[in-house]
């Protein structure tokens, strides 16, 4: 029987071996990657997307939260938005009229994520309570205006950082957690259908921050983590990740599938966004800001979203900037943070409406803002 010391030695040797293989792999990829999306597009003579500062305007400011906004989600059908705040509330807004339709006081105020169910009748939220709570918006509020929870999904051993319903399936939801796992839940029974990571090898080795389900193939989803990687999962095979994507140099705070479902974007604490090819694992493009004059640390990317065609990549930053990137040419076409009426603090979340006509941003300044495309171009 091996002694503890021997096992420790073996472990160290194995780790060193994995690291050297990983480095060789990285070098090989670099060799094969002779260009990135931007350089190729420019070489092809692609014109930058024409964008004026007036093409995207802040048409609504949603006020009402008494604490920092942490998360938001649009309904797939109507133009409703649910937002979660450090004040311990979920608020449901009619985006067209900016009126509030529901305000739900949560049992655990430390909420970090919220999501709308595909039919728009329920909302899910989770946070430091390490659980995901589901509310049916049609339930009767009690005398004090409090809404009953319809289900609590427990099982995570750490905070719930993000949640997303499987498109077109009211009954299934995927969560990501500080316990390094993602979980697929059956909402009707409250059971965990599958656990991705954790005890199984090839799972994340640090807190998972974000998930994105591929709308073109809902069996696949990606997860971004503090271990600086993104992992691709097939929900039918929980025992190992399909692929791991390296490249970022810090926590991956946000992941989003590209509209065609073959690529996905990421946003990280390292200040960059990246575009990866799902199938090959190649890092197709890095979206990197100019360092500022004082050479301060780059602000972190907190959340990202693609326009409906994918030509635009929206990225929210910890310093309140909200860049609109030309995905193809890797250039910033607009900074919503510089416009009139912009947020006064960190952008913590953002999301595109399902018809692609508006972007909603949420901030630590306690507000949400809706930015609509105007002028000749309604939708990009």
């Amino acid at each position: 029987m091996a002694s503890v010391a021997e096992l420790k030695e073996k472990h160290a040797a194995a780790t060193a071996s994995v690291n050297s293989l990983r480095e060789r792999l990285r070098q090989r990829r670099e060799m094969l990657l002779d260009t990135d999306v931007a350089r190729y597009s420019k070489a092809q003579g692609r014109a930058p997307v024409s964008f004026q500062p007036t093409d995207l305007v802040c048409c609504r400011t949603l006020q009402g939260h008494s604490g920092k906004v942490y998360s938001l989600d649009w309904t797939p059908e109507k133009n409703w938005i649910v937002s979660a705040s450090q004040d311990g509330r979920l608020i449901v807004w009619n985006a067209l009229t900016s009126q509030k339709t529901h305000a739900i006081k949560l049992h655990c105020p430390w909420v970090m994520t919220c999501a709308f169910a595909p039919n728009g009748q329920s909302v899910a939220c989770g946070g430091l309570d390490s659980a995901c709570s589901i509310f049916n918006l049609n339930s009767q509020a009690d005398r004090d205006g409090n809404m009953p929870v319809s289900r609590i999904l427990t099982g995570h051993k750490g905070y719930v950082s993000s949640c997303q319903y499987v498109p077109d399936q009211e009954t299934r939801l995927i969560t990501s957690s500080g316990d390094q796992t993602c979980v697929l839940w059956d909402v009707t029974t409250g059971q965990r259908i599958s656990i991705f990571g954790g005890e199984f090898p090839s799972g994340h080795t640090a807190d998972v921050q974000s998930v994105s389900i591929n709308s073109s193939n809902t069996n696949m989803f990606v997860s971004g983590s503090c271990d600086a990687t993104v992992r691709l999962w097939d929900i039918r095979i929980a025992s190992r990740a399909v692929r791991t994507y390296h490249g970022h140099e810090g926590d991956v705070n946000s992941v989003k599938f590209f509209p065609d479902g073959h690529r996905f974007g990421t946003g990280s604490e390292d200040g960059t966004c990246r575009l990866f090819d799902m199938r090959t694992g190649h890092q197709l493009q890095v979206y990197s800001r100019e360092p500022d004059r004082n050479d301060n640390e780059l602000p972190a990317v907190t959340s990202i979203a693609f326009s409906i065609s994918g030509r635009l990549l929206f990225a929210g930053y910890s310093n309140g900037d909200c860049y609109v990137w030309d995905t193809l040419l890797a250039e910033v076409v607009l900074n919503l943070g510089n416009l009139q009426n912009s947020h006064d603090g960190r952008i913590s979340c953002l999301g595109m409406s399902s018809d692609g006509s508006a972007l909603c941003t949420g901030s630590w300044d306690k507000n949400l803002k809706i930015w609509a495309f105007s002028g000749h171009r309604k939708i990009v």
Partner: protein
Amino acid sequence: MSVLTCVIESMGSSCSRPHSLNEAEAAENAKSADIDRRILQETKAEQHIHKLLLLGAGESGKSTIFKQIKLLFQTGFDEAELRSYTSVIHANVYQTIKVLYDGAKELAQVEPDSSKYVLSPDNQETGEKLSEVGANLDYPLLNKETVEDVRKLWQDPAIQETYSRGSILQVPDCAQYFMNNLDRLAEVDYIPTKEDVLHARVRTNGVVEIQFSPLGESKRGGEVYRLYDVGGQRNERRKWIHLFEGVNAVIFCAAISEYDQMLFEDETKNRMMETKELFDWVLKQRCFEKTSFMLFLNKFDMFERKIQKVPLSVCEWFKDYQPTAPGKQEVEHAYEFVKKKFEELYFQSSKPDRVDRVFKIYRTTALDQKLVKKTFKLIDESMRRSREGA
């Protein structure tokens, strides 16, 4: 329908039809206004509540403080709650004996005088059996037979020898207390006492909170507190600490008795160094720029006993410590030295514009109810004074 189109249309309509908004819109507006009113009301109602956040490394005593507050200022634990701790306490017994048994095996392999750590063959068999039980997450309840087994093992000289080396293993602080009470714990109608509950070690899963009023809520001028313990999160604090921006005070627990112990999560790391790093990190967080800090130098009772046997200087942070005379004076001298180190760290880690936030140090022994009560009385006074001054 695109959002902007709707905005333009509704702008037009509200200008030209001030009196005849259709019913649905009116109802929607009324509901929204209602919600705004309710939010305002609820926010106002909570403004006077002092929010306190308990922070500290694992096993610094946060949960014990939390339980003490519950016992002191709330209705304490009712019978159902006390009973709910039975399985936890029994699990603690199995966990403890397993750590000791596995520890003895390991020491027997790596220590030069290994014979000290070898159990009698009979006890080895018992040890293997108990270790198996401890390996599952679903512990059975203790009964007369298992208690006999546990006691036999506990009394084996090899196990006692291992226990004396407890600081290099992960032997929980509650070990001695539970081993001394085995018979009572295994009684058929056992209901945990408050003291049993205070010693019990359970990992909370998320965040626990408790609202209390030291003077009683009915008394006028009685301050209301809400205490949060986020001890259950074993992950990246930086990802959620900012949720607590706006709390009135951080209560940071540091177990000063652990200067010679290693972390549970990483046995190469000294616990005191971990606490030092954590305190430094918390002090520098932007979200706590204006937050008061209460530093609890905890587990003083264990510190007192340990200082006689293990010099402070074994911890890198305290390596410049010079002992004076043995005995009671030494304890005070050592304590003042540690306190000074924390003070220095506080001022080093606080930017100039933060130096005037409130910072107080308290010597505590979380298991000592009277002391905790006294400490909270002091904190209560301090918070009231700072609120009046503000």
